[in-house]
């Protein structure tokens, strides 16, 4: 019945996993596993590997570097200071961007007639060279 391209998968693997991880199998099922692993090498290897992996997982531990309360309070103080600085910088940047945006908006106000962007920024009329009020049409003719 085994398919050609598939590995030899034993149906007992799931039961072995449930037994090792959950540990809530019935007595009959536990006996069934014990009897099966005597004759099935694949399952015997699977059970051994699973138990070894669980033991490794239990034993594997990461130990953080040793520190004292003075060290962590100092770290915390520095972290708070850094966060405060970052927050201040971000707030100033946001305020500057907002101010710049408002300035551009006011300058480019569509309700205010202006021929060029340059004129929009030129508050000083003497700089508005194309304005008729500064240079009347007949100014050069006189």
């Amino acid at each position: 019945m085994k398919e050609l391209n598939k590995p030899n998968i034993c149906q007992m693997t799931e039961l072995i996993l449930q037994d090792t991880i959950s540990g809530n199998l019935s007595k009959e099922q536990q006996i069934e596993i014990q009897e099966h692993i005597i004759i099935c090498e694949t399952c015997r290897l699977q059970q051994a590997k699973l138990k070894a992996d669980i033991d490794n997982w239990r034993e594997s531990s990461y130990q953080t570097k040793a520190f004292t309360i003075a060290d962590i309070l100092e770290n915390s103080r520095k972290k708070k200071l850094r966060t405060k600085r970052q927050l201040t910088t971000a707030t100033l940047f946001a305020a500057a961007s907002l101010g710049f945006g408002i300035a551009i908006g006011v300058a480019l106000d569509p309700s205010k007639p202006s021929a060029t962007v340059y004129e929009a920024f030129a508050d000083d009329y003497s700089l508005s060279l194309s304005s008729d009020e500064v240079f009347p049409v007949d100014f050069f003719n006189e």
Partner: protein
Amino acid sequence: MNQEKAFIQALKNKEEEAFNQLIAMYQPLLSRVIFKIVSDKDETQDLVQEVFIQVWESIAFFKEESSLKTWIYRLGINKALSYLKKKDIRMAISFHTWFSEKKPTEGLSSSNESTLSDIFRNEDHNAISAALKLLPAQQRAAFVLSKQEGLSNPEIATVLNTSISAVESLVFRAKQRLVKELLPYYQNKIS
């Protein structure tokens, strides 16, 4: 018991020596539990320190209804879980996730073999650690406290601030999910 009360009083008085003793006592426990939940060494280092800062700041509010160990377990687990929550939110709003075909939760909930294989390829962990990463945070925490720390269900309920039946359900679902995730790996690995 009186010794613990005196120790807690020393902590409440912010005696540095008592705090250093507390760190020496609980740093290995917190490192172990937090690392098993977040699976990140740098983050574990930061989170363990944050737990002790929290103890320093809030020891005055410790009502002594549970043991000091249970309270510290709770602070550690809460830190680890809130870190995972923030990480999930960051992942959800990242451009990478928006434009990738898989949604963040999709990869975690799917029980296909490739997800487990991906974790193996990226980080050379053992099968149990890799499969644990596929569990939801609460289930992961309950499983670690039960299988690794050997805590009873009532103790886990106190640490996770939930009911005993909820803990039973979390541990049961965690084990079922692990069996489901690990099955293709062990079948292919050995056969």
